[in-house]
């Protein structure tokens, strides 16, 4: 039984169409990440799945049940919000218990579920504290705990790490991956951070302007993008694009990832280094070519190049991607 299936889902606010004919299937135990630039509709899509927004047309099924007109509480989902959204007047235990109380669970069941979640998230010392007395990371763990106790068929995460600092973000990311492994429940995760998308997802859904651009495993999207947008969106630093005519290649645009460019003694791509980023493990060079285009080169390890050095760049044509005038990938 699929965890979630969306059939031809559209959503408009008045004249503005935010989602256009979305079709998607999420398998049980799968971790799916919605990613895209801001305003692409990824959060709206999540809210349609949650039932916080009604779909203008189309069908939403969760574990086979048509829930298109079902209120959020009865959809078998749980959601974790970017702003934590803990109830300020309840302590940690109360926050986790509220949903179960409303669902009419017995006191014993509630206590047992909370105990399990608390163990999973190491929240024992904080049970009697109010949200105001917790740090950001602890609050987000409580929010995740509140989702876990509901034993949902589907977890929804709406940019849960955006409010955390870098170190905590990494730790919480690992924790979410661990929880997914231990619970084995399907999860949908919305983010604009491609590192989160790449590291967490079984499958990534790339959205733009309310449409799905491509769906696939992180490496499939990275190594085999369908179009210019997906190629440029995934990967940091992002892919270099050059007009195909300049290289005598077919199609309209050629894309090369920064790590596939190398320094050569001479070649058609000659230019000057305009900026150097030394990251220790990597060195990123910005090279401005004679034609005015700027390319990013990612070299592994540490390199002595300086701003102003003249360099030539080369790449293996097997690592290059070709795109046609509409930005669609030309596969050889």
């Amino acid at each position, binding site marked *: 039984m699929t965890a979630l299936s969306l059939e031809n889902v559209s959503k408009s606010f008045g004249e503005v169409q935010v989602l256009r004919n979305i079709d998607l299937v999420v398998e049980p135990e799968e971790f799916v990440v919605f990613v895209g630039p801001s305003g692409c509709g990824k959060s709206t899509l999540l809210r349609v799945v949650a039932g916080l927004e009604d779909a203008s047309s189309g069908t939403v099924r969760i574990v086979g049940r048509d829930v298109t007109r079902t209120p959020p509480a009865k959809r078998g989902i749980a959601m974790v919000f970017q702003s934590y959204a803990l109830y300020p007047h309840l302590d940690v235990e109360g926050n986790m218990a509220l949903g179960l109380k409303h669902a009419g669970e017995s006191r014993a069941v509630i206590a047992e579920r909370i105990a399990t979640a608390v163990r999973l998230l190491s929240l024992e010392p904080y049970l009697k504290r109010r949200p105001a007395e917790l740090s950001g990371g602890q609050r987000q763990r409580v929010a995740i705990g*509140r989702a876990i106790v509901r034993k949902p068929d589907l977890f929804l995460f709406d940019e849960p790490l955006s409010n955390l600092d870098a170190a905590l973000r990494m730790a919480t990311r690992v924790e979410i991956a661990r929880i997914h492994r231990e619970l084995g429940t399907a999860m949908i995760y919305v983010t604009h951070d491609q590192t989160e998308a790449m590291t967490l997802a079984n499958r990534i859904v790339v959205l733009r302007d309310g449409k799905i651009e491509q769906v696939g495993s992180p490496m499939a999207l990275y190594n085999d993008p369908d179009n210019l947008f997906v190629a440029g969106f995934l990967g940091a630093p992002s892919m270099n694009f050059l007009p195909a005519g300049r290289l005598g290649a077919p199609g309209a645009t050629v894309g090369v990832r920064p790590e596939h460019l190398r320094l050569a003694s001479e070649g058609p791509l000659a230019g000057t280094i305009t900026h150097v980023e030394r990251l220790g493990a990597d060195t990123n060079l910005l090279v401005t070519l004679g034609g005015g285009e700027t390319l990013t080169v990612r070299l592994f390890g540490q390199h002595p190049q300086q701003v102003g050095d003249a360099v030539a760049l080369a790449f293996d044509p097997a690592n290059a991607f070709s795109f046609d005038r509409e930005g669609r990938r030309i596969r050889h």
Partner: protein
Amino acid sequence: MNRARTSRLNTVAAHAALLAWTAIALFPVFVILVNSFKTRRAIFAEPLSLPSEATFSMVGYRTVMAQGDFLLYFQNSLIVTVGSLTFILLFGAMAAFALSEYRFRGNMLMGLYLALGIMIPIRIGTVAILQMMVATGLVNTLTALILVYTAQGLPLAVFILSEFMRQVSDDLKNAGRIDGMNEYAIFLRLVLPLVRPAMATVAVFNMIPIWNDLWFPLILAPGEATKTLTLGSQVFIGQFVTDWNAVLSALSLAILPVLVLYVLFSRQLIRGITSGAVK
């Protein structure tokens, strides 16, 4: 306050200004209280001096207690004020929640319409209101006053509360919806506690004018059974003779309940339970 950014001079100046303001604000109250305990002669001879052994007198309070039904007036004022505040806060908050939370056609226009009353004084409609009350048989009832004061207070309440409710995090309300709360529970248990300071502000703003109002009690409910405290005190102010002892004593007594209500509301103003709800 950051010590590095404030000089001693600034602190002194700020405190001097605040103290001066406090003195000015409290002065009339002080004069009323002090003189209510003095003999009539002493009130006029030395209005600013404290009551001494020779000038101390409770005659004003005795007159107030003996004449008229002051306890009833008190009760009437309290019923009208508390009743009006309850309805203003309840209906104001409900309208504000609808305006801030739901997208519907005409939302903006409805908000403007509800706020229009802030700019139009309700007293302009006194004649029409009186006709309406006569037609419905509500003249000389406390209900008439409560209805008018509720109408008078709602525009500002809706305006202030809807602004505050817009700031309550959407995520929090959505979390409640996912946890199975219905819209009433979200309104009562999540949103209202978070806008408590705004509710207290609205309550304080409305309470004083209602308690002190003379206009509508005089026109709509001048009967002996429905007199409010302010109207009741007027019996001591005559065209030729005014019983100042009684007037000042009645006013001193009238301050007390407002003071109690104010203290109750200001506790809410100060209490900051909202911090940490959302980042």
